[in-house]
Structures are given as structure tokens and as C-alpha cells.
């Protein structure tokens, strides 16, 4: 081929590439998300190939399911939401109205709980509130009787607040900072006292963001799995936990029916949420934000002293909820039965690695699997997420539908996706007479990628939306194809978002538990969170040690991706 015709072929490819990747993304979603979810739905409404409502009707008429499972799930989600608001709103107040050292750092740290493996957080809570946990050690040290917090609703709620209060704090802080000080000044000049001005001017501007934070928290906690599994056991089971227990008992139809009910509720909630979010998307930093004051008052009045005391008390609670569990886990991993320092738990892991039987969970394969799946997730989720970000920030007919279809993985729990993949592609599917099977490992990467790419999209899309469309148009009028414009102009400008999204994808993959525990089969595909859970069932020491390894690997991967990307971002 001559050079000219090679050029022409490349150009034609370039012109079609974006469409091609978009189509590929659609196929991936269809095969790895919609098809598996449909499989679960089919399991719920088909018995021997005939449609029936019996399994679902059986659940909806059973007092056990309605009260003990579904009602309990909603109840714990509601309380968790209240707790998250109670813990998160003061943080938003501090972040937006006060100036103190480390404010920016603390604010960016609020992203961390979100990427922490939930099973690790569960371990942290066990290490804190368990019978021999930090709390009871502290109580006995001062001569108080021990308390039993594990396997109670309270433990679950606090753990959920650990995850979601930072989320509430983030969205409300953003809204608070975008309140224009001039609106308050206008109200004051018209005669409102500070309290009245807050109620009439500031609060109405915060309410939508509080609504967003609360709805998201409810959605997440409604579908919470590892936390409830580890801290509630099967005695306090949410729908999600019960689906898992049904799957373990091979009662697929019942599991599927429960999963369908959960999915329908979650999707409804998500639809409400998306509507809510769309109505307040414009929030950006105000040109004239409200002034900040120092946390340490310049003159001490009873009022300011009370405020400072309140802030100090709040800081103590924050420390207790966020720092103590992680610290307890690290501490427990190096504490022996006698309370002294020991490396026995790590030695146990090393020994298990060296001499463990093939059916036993070894640490090294878990680490390697986690890293391999994370790499696979990265490769699949980042292009998918970026293309989705391009598609969801452009205007065209049917855009709303694309938005919903693309964000659906947000609303569908990992358990359902895992179950669908297991019942479909892992067990095997007949396509035109050929039996198609994928291995558990592939299915895990698929499930992780489907769970992770919305985070890439959410990190990248706002940056795309902020890009002036005329940049691309200028590039195109200068001769660049759509793909070249994406590569030359848009990607360099949204690179920080891509990197952040990639870091999220890695962290989510490493911490993913819900679908992995369903899909992990034997030594080939269990990951670190699965290993933690297996150990947790038997002894706490090795579980905390494994949890520390998980913490290390998660933080390291997050940092590596971020650092690596940071360097590239400067090019």
C-alpha cells in the first residue's frame, strides 16, 4: 500500500474510532451487565421455562421476608442515613465556615473512606468493638464492664456512617461554599437577624445538597453487603446478605427473586436521586463565598466557648469513628492474646503461604489475584468510562436514555451482577450451538469493570462538561478528526480526571467484595477481601494482619496510579 492510501485508511479509522469504542462499550455493558442482570430476572420469573410470579409473590407474602429482611434493610438504611447526616453535616459546617490548619487536606481526605475496602472497615470495627476489641480493653483498663456492640444494629449503623458521612460532608460543603455572601448580606440589610438569614437564605440553598447526600447514603446502605455480613452476621441480614446466603445454599430461584425485589427498589431510588441531582448540578464555587472564621475564637464569650467546646467534642467523635477502627485493626494485627506485641499473625500468614493445603486460603495468591484483577479492571474500565463521559456530556437525541443505561451499574448491587455472571457466562451459555463459558477470573474482572467504570465517568465527565466545545470545533476545522481532537485536545485537558478515575477503579477493584465472593472459585480467583473474610470467620488475628496487607496494597495502588498520572499530567 502506498503511503497516501495508508494515511487514508488511518483517517477513516480515526473518523470512526469514537463510534467504534462507543459500540464496543455498549456490547461490553450488554454482555457483562445487562445480560447477567436479565439472567437473574429470568431466574426469578421463569420456572422450567414458563413465566410465573410465584417466587416473587412468595417473598412478598412471607412475613419473614417482609419484616425480617426487607423492612430491616430499609430500617437500617434509614438509621444509617440519619447517622451519616448527624456526623457529616457538622463537618460541612466546619469545612465551609471555618479556617484552620489542614482544612484543605482534611477535606480531600474525605474521599478516602469511599475507596476503602468495606471488608477491611468491617475488620476495623470488629477490632474496635469486638469482645476483646480496643473499646473493651479501654473500658476494662478504667474498671468498667465490657460492652457487646458486635452483631448489633448500632455497629452496622456506625460503620455505615464511616462510609457515608464523608460523602454527606463533601456534597454539602460544596453547596455551602457556593452560597453567595451577598445574598446573606442583602437579607441582613433588609432586617433579618443572623439566625433568620440562615434559615431564609442559606438553608434553602443547602437543602438540595443535603437531599442528595441523604438519598445517596440511603441507596448505598440499602445495598450494603460486607459490613452487614461481618458486623451483623446472618442474624441481622439485609436483602443483600440473604441473597448471598441463598446462593450459598444453591437456592437460586429464591435468591434471584430477592435480588429482583432489591434491584427494583434500588433503581427506583436511583432514578429519584438522578432527578434530584440534575436539578442542582450548577453548584460551583461562588464568586463571593461566605467568610470563614478561626476555630479558636479571638475573644472568649460564653457563646464562642460553647462553640469551641462543641467543635472539640465533634473532633473527638470523628477520631473515634474514623481513626480508631483503622488504628485498632493495625494494633490488633500486632497484638498477641496476652496483649503484648507480636508478629505471630503475620508469621501465620507466611506459614500458611509456605505449607498451606491447596483448599486453604493463601495470602500471596490473594495479593497477586487482587493486583491482576485491578490491572484488568483498569484496562477495561478507563476507556469505557472516558467514552461514556464523552457521550454523556454531549447533546443529542436519546441522551437521557444513555445516561440512565450507563449509570445503571450504580444502582445494581455487585451481588446481582455476580449472581448473573455466575448463572450465565460462568456456568455456560449456548450461542448458536456453541457453549460459551468464561472463567471465574474473567467474570470477576468483568464485574469489577462494570462496577468501576461509572466512577471513571463521574470523575471525567465534569471536566469534559467544563471544556469549551469550541476547542474541539477549532481543532476539527483545522483538519483534526474527532478522534484526533479527543487525543490532542480533550484528553490532555481532562487528564487529571482520567487519573483520578483510574485510581478509583483500582481501589474499587481491590476492595470489591460483593460479586467477587460469588464468583471466586478455588485458589484461582480469590482476592484479598475474600481472604480477609475467610480468616475473619475463624480467627481475628490473621484476619487483621490480612486486612493490614489489604490496606497497604490499596493505599499503595491508589498512590501509585495517582502519582504516575500526576507526572504524566504535567507533560
Amino acid at each position, binding site marked *: 500500500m502506498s503511503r497516501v492510501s495508508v494515511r487514508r485508511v488511518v483517517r477513516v479509522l480515526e*473518523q470512526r474510532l469514537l463510534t467504534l469504542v462507543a459500540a464496543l462499550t455498549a456490547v461490553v455493558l450488554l454482555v457483562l451487565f445487562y445480560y447477567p442482570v436479565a439472567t437473574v430476572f429470568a431466574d426469578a420469573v421463569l420456572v422450567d421455562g414458563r413465566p410465573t410470579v410465584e417466587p416473587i409473590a412468595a417473598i412478598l407474602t412471607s412475613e419473614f421476608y417482609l419484616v425480617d429482611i426487607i423492612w430491616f434493610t430499609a430500617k437500617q438504611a434509614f438509621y444509617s442515613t440519619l447517622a451519616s447526616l448527624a456526623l457529616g453535616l457538622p463537618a460541612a459546617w466546619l469545612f465551609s465556615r471555618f479556617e484552620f490548619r489542614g482544612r484543605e487536606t482534611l477535606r480531600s481526605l474525605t474521599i478516602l473512606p469511599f475507596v476503602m475496602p468495606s471488608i477491611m472497615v468491617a475488620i476495623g470495627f470488629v477490632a474496635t468493638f469486638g469482645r476483646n476489641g480496643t473499646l473493651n480493653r479501654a473500658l476494662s483498663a478504667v474498671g468498667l464492664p465490657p460492652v457487646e456492640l458486635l452483631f448489633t444494629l448500632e455497629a452496622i449503623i456506625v460503620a455505615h456512617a464511616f462510609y457515608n458521612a464523608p460523602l454527606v460532608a463533601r456534597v454539602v460543603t460544596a453547596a455551602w461554599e457556593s452560597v453567595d455572601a451577598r445574598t446573606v448580606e442583602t437579607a441582613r440589610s433588609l432586617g433579618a437577624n443572623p439566625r433568620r438569614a440562615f434559615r431564609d437564605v442559606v438553608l434553602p440553598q443547602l437543602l438540595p445538597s443535603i437531599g442528595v447526600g441523604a438519598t445517596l447514603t440511603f441507596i448505598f446502605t440499602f445495598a450494603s453487603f460486607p459490613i452487614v455480613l461481618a458486623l451483623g452476621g446472618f442474624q441481622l441480614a439485609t436483602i443483600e446478605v440473604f441473597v448471598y446466603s441463598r446462593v450459598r445454599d444453591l437456592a437460586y430461584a429464591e435468591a434471584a427473586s430477592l435480588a429482583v425485589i432489591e434491584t427494583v427498589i434500588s433503581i427506583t431510588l436511583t432514578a429519584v436521586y438522578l432527578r434530584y441531582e440534575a436539578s442542582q448540578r450548577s453548584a460551583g464555587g461562588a464568586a463571593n463565598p461566605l467568610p470563614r472564621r478561626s476555630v479558636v475564637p479571638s475573644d472568649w464569650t460564653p457563646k464562642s466557648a460553647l462553640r469551641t467546646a462543641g467543635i472539640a467534642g465533634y473532633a473527638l467523635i470523628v477520631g473515634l469513628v474514623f481513626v480508631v477502627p483503622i488504628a485498632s485493626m493495625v494494633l490488633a494485627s500486632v497484638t498477641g492474646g496476652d496483649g503484648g506485641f507480636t508478629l505471630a499473625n503475620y508469621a501465620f500468614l507466611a506459614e500458611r503461604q509456605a505449607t498451606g493445603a491447596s483448599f486453604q486460603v493463601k495470602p500471596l495468591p490473594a495479593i497477586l489475584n487482587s493486583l491482576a484483577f485491578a490491572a484488568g479492571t483498569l484496562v477495561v474500565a478507563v476507556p469505557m468510562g472516558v467514552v461514556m463521559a464523552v457521550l454523556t456530556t454531549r447533546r443529542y437525541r436519546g441522551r437521557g436514555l444513555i445516561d440512565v443505561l450507563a449509570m445503571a451499574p450504580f444502582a445494581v448491587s455487585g451481588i446481582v451482577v455476580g449472581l448473573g455472571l455466575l448463572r450465565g457466562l460462568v456456568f455456560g451459555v449456548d450461542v448458536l450451538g456453541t457453549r460459551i463459558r468464561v472463567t471465574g477470573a474473567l467474570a470477576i474482572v468483568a464485574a469489577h469493570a462494570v462496577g468501576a467504570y461509572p466512577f471513571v465517568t463521574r470523575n471525567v465527565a465534569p471536566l469534559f462538561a467544563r471544556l*469549551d466545545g*469550541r*476547542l474541539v*470545533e*477549532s*481543532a*476539527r*476545522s*483545522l*483538519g*483534526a*478528526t*474527532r478522534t*484526533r481532537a479527543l487525543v*490532542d*485536545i480533550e484528553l*490532555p*485537558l481532562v487528564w487529571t480526571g482520567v487519573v483520578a478515575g483510574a485510581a478509583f477503579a483500582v481501589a474499587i477493584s481491590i476492595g470489591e467484595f460483593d460479586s467477587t465472593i460469588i464468583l471466586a472459585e478455588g485458589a484461582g480467583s480469590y482476592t484479598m477481601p475474600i481472604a480477609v473474610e475467610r480468616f475473619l470467620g475463624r480467627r481475628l488475628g490473621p484476619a487483621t494482619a490480612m486486612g493490614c496487607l489489604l490496606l497497604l496494597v490499596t493505599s499503595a495502588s491508589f498512590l501509585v496510579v495517582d502519582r504516575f498520572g500526576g507526572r504524566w499530567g504535567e507533560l
Partner: protein
Amino acid sequence: MRLELDAVSKRYGSATALDSVSLSVDDGEFFTLVGPSGCGKTTTLRCIAGFESPTEGTVRFDGESMAGVAPESRGVGVVFQNYALFPHLSVGENVAYGLRFTDPPGGGTRDERIAELLDLVDLAGFEDRDPDSLSGGQQQRVALARALAPGPNLLLLDEPMSALDARLRDRLRRQVKRIQSELGVTTVYVTHDQSEALAVSDRVAVLNRGRVEQVGRPRELYHRPRTRFVAEFLGENNVLDAVVESRPETGGIRVGVGDAVFTLAEGRRVLGQGGSASGDRAESDGRDGGRPARPAPGDELTFCVRPEQLRVGAETNRVRGTVVDTEFQGATTRVRLDWGETELVVAVEDGGEESAAGFEVGTTLDIGFAPASAHIVE
């Protein structure tokens, strides 16, 4: 390159942005689309550039239909209002971007071409600067250099000056015009500023609500607007609705506006048969073929008189009004008169520091105009 738009329409759902727009721009011409915001001028430009495709109608470059031709294959240079410089590239890299896809015109090297263009826009030596470090006017000139670098057949300018302050705008406008005539590149310029349109263009198309109201040379549009919209949009004007009273033997038309009676000369617009009389480019308008040639007594008509054609103390077509307010504008003073029927604006040449005497609010003033200075519009 010759550009033609043949009955181009663009609809978004039920909203019509462009309604059968037909235009033709000659090779090397500086052609301006002017109109209020939302009139469709930017949509027209985007259809030409290929960022939008017309719902109906055809865009042709040198007679060749552009339907299905991607923006990158059209050879069109575009400059936007907000410059749209690539923020992660230096000034030189911005200008060079189009040369990634084509060889520099004129046979030189890429670097020579960049230097040549930066020199053309008076930014020689700015290659390594960061676009953010430049002033608005400088950024706009970089955008112009970038658009011209690959040697486009057509230059599209979308309100390129509106983000700049007035003085800078005037200077840059002259510079753009000079570069354009030096290079001889066919140019379509979009603006909402009628004085800008009249100042730089070879020809102007006035757009309103997605339709072409009139196309013509600036002087022609100013002095012989075809429609009321054009008369009011370009410059200041007194537009009056009248009823024809009689057509005296001595020529002209006598019309009544309220109690007042005016004599208008019959302009070419009225005598002529349709659009061919209105100018030398019948292909671009020609919507008025069915208009009655001679208004008969009892017919309603609309005519306009420019403020500078209204004279204090004129002999013909006299009316008496009360001064409502005055605005000193340097060379002239705009005097607004309440004359019972409506308000009239008179431009009075300034005669020095004390000359405003007699124009105080509340004083009465006799003004009039020559029959030939009135112009009848649709």
C-alpha cells in the same frame, strides 16, 4: 472560493433556527451576517463550517455540495468569540496545530509558516508564550493566525471582537480587514453589531428570526432598507406608519400620519418592479416580486427618515415638536422630540460649546425633511 447556501433550513425539534436561507458569497469577498441574538447567524456559520448539518437545503463550496463532508475535510478556518485557544499548547503550537494535518502552504517549513503568521498578526516572537499570558486582543490574533495557518479556502469569524473593549475592537477590526484583503481569502463574518457590519464588509446580509431580510452593500442597506426591520436595525431611524392620501400631478405621494401630511418622493423602490431595482444582486433577494408598484390612495405604507435627514427649520414636511431629551454625542446632538403622534429623533450637528442653547427640554422646535430623503419600506 465561492460559497453558496441554497435554501438552507435548520430545525431543532419544533424550533426553527434557519428558515430557507439562500446566500452567495463571491471569491475573496468579505461578507457579513448581522442580526440580533437568536436570528440564526451563528447557526448559519456552523452549517457552513460543518459543525451542524442543515435539516434541508445545501451548502456548496465552488459549486460542490458539502453534505456529508466532515468539518476537518472542508478547509475552513474558524475564529470564535472566546478565541478557543488550546490552553495546554504554546502560542506557536496553537498556530502549528492545523499544520499537523497538511503541509504548510507556500512550500516553506512549518516553523517558517508559524513565524510568517505571527508576523502577520503583529505577534512575532510570541511562539513560546502561554496563551493564558496574553491579553484578549493578543489571544484573538493568535486565534486568527491559527485559523489562517493551513491556508483555508474560507475564513469564518464568529463574533470575534465582542469580548474586547471598544477601542481595541476598532483597531483589531481594521487589522482583520487588512489581512483579509491582503490574503484575498473569502470571509464570512458574524456580528450583532450593525456599525461593525457596515464598517468592514463588502456586502452584508441582515438576518432576523432565521430568515434573510436583505442582502446588499453597506450603503445600499443603510439608505434603502427594504423592510422595517432592516430600517430599524441598521443605525438609528424614524419609522412612520402612514396612509396614502393622493398622488398629485406634480409627482410624489402625499401621505398622512395622524393630522400631519407629508410629501414623499417616489423612490426607485416604489417605482421599480420587484427586487431587481433594489440592487445589483437579484439572486440574493427577490422576495418582493408581488408587491404593488404604485400605492393608491387609501393604501397603508411605512416610510423612514434618518435622524440626520431631519433638519431644524426645513421648509418642506414641517412638524412642530417638544424636546423630550437630548444626548450629546460629539459630532452631533441627538434631540428627541415629542410630536403628538410619536417621538422623532433629530441629529443636530454640533456647532460648538454654546450651540445646545434652544434644545432645552420643553422647548418647541420646528423640523422638516426633503421629500427625497424619505424612504418607503415594506
